[in-house]
């Protein structure tokens, strides 16, 4: 049934849909960050990627350090509550492991640009950027005039990634995807993209909104999604509400792992590149912790 999302392994999905030079959006605002998919992209050695993400936190720090990225499009680049993204800073400040082009926005502009992409509008409209230097350095932030009031309003070009990748709590066997809690711009990213890969905690027979979840569940129909992959724990060290909490300790530890090129590379090779998949990565981390 070609009109439904294909259920396949994450390695297959990345092999099939993520090409060198592609424009990707890996979204998930603190919650449901698709770390497993990010690792698989590094593992398969994708290069020259344009990486879009409102908050390129640890997941893009890893991809940048691994040499996968040519450019990032973003609005806030830090390790939330911890500090700098050292790999990103090393790329921007010192060009290591290669030069990194920046296209920088504010959150409001990125959100409007994703919504415009999902709606197939050529640009997103917002009140924004007034008094900020960002438009001086980003020619993709322009201003239009309201045809009714004459007011100037900011305009940002729609985000239209080649592939959007998100993590969600559940899917059914037809590829209908359900998520709840902090849902960020995940729906917009999927709908704005040409193709989409959704990793989920579990594939279930019947999608039901769970009790005790925030009353904001949403379902993406399977025919609007390209591929669904079951990857238990696939958002670690981010979290999946109803499944596991954010591993704040890992985020703090990332600061030390990533601070130096050597320690980062050792970590990347040992735990990501030398493992077969995300389960292997988790086991490798555990055995290192217990050693």
């Amino acid at each position, binding site marked *: 049934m070609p009109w439904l999302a294909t259920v396949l392994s994450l390695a297959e999905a990345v092999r099939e849909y993520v090409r060198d030079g592609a424009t990707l959006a890996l979204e998930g*605002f*603190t*919650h449901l960050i698709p770390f497993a998919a990010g690792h698989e992209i590094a593992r398969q050695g994708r290069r020259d990627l344009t990486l879009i993400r*409102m*908050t390129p936190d640890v997941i893009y720090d890893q991809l940048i350090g691994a040499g996968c990225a040519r450019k990032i499009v*973003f*609005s*806030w*680049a*830090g390790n*939330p*509550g*911890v500090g*700098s*993204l050292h790999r*990103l*800073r090393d790329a*921007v*400040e010192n060009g290591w492991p290669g030069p990194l082009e920046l296209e*920088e926005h*504010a*959150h*409001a502009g990125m*959100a*409007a640009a*994703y*919504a415009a992409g999902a709606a197939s509008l050529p640009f997103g409209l*917002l*009140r*924004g*950027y*007034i*008094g*900020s*230097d*960002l438009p001086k*350095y980003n020619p993709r932030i322009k201003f239009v005039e309201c045809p009714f009031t004459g007011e*100037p309003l900011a305009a940002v070009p729609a985000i239209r990634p080649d592939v959007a990748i998100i993590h969600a709590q559940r899917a059914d066997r037809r590829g209908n995807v359900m998520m709840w*809690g*902090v*849902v*960020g*711009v995940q729906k*917009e990213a999927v709908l704005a993209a040409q193709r989409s890969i959704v990793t989920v905690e579990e594939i279930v027979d019947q999608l039901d909104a769970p009790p005790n979840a*925030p*009353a*904001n569940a949403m379902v993406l129909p399977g025919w609007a999604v390209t591929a669904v992959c079951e990857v238990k724990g696939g958002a670690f*060290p981010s*979290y999946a*509400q109803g499944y596991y*909490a*954010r*591993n*704040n*300790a*890992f*985020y*703090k*530890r990332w600061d030390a792992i990533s601070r130096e090129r050597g320690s980062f590379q050792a970590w990347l090779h040992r735990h990501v590149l030398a493992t077969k998949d995300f389960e292997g990565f988790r086991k490798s981390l555990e055995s290192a*912790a217990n050693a």
Partner: protein
Amino acid sequence: MPDANGHTASEIMTIAAARRLRNGSVCFVGIGLPSAAANLARLTHAPEVVLIYESGPIGAKPSVLPLSIGDGELSETADAVVPIPEMFSYWLQAGRIDVGFLGAAQIDRFANINSTVIGDYRKPRTRLPGAGGAPEIAAFSKEVLIVLRHDKRAFVENLDFVTSPGYFDGGGTRERMGLPGKGPTAVITDLGILKPDAATKELTLASLHPGVSVQQVVEATGWPLKIAPKVETTAAPTAAELATLRDLNARTARAHAGQA
């Protein structure tokens, strides 16, 4: 480490900021010190303060402070959780926020702030996280509170980059630029509180924290700081404020520990 006054620089900043939140006000909260201040207010004098985190939770009531802007604790305790495009359009841009809280790496005398780069944008000495929600928090909140440590690296004559507007070049410029919110009403530091002059909008020393001298603040400021005719002294933290804040921080530290 508490100093001779019995509290740390962080604690007095957090407590001074918390006191400025009225009960029932709607507060757009950033991570770190703003979140600590807003939750301290909620746990002390302002039980009905509405805390909004940009990740989506509206009316969050976390029992420990979140490390990230979207920790599960926030959405689990919220009255509503909305998608990001809705948060920035229907809630922030629409002017529903009473108080927006911002931090900064640099601030100038008109309370414009930089959280983007130190040095040249294209060849930065230090690349900072960037704007996030700040430009629109600064523009659309009815009132903005800025919290940062007071030293000459932060309080500068000229910003390396204007991330978010305060009063532009002062006077009526902010209004003329069409920004609806009234702008930063206080800059709360570890030394005292600066407030904009009613006419010129230049930041003026309005209050000193216990044990701090005017001279100390002047020396920590990178421009010739204006001093209010009558500088007040920030009330010392009460025992209840300190105890509540330290409890909150201790609970938070326990919650964020654990194996990576």
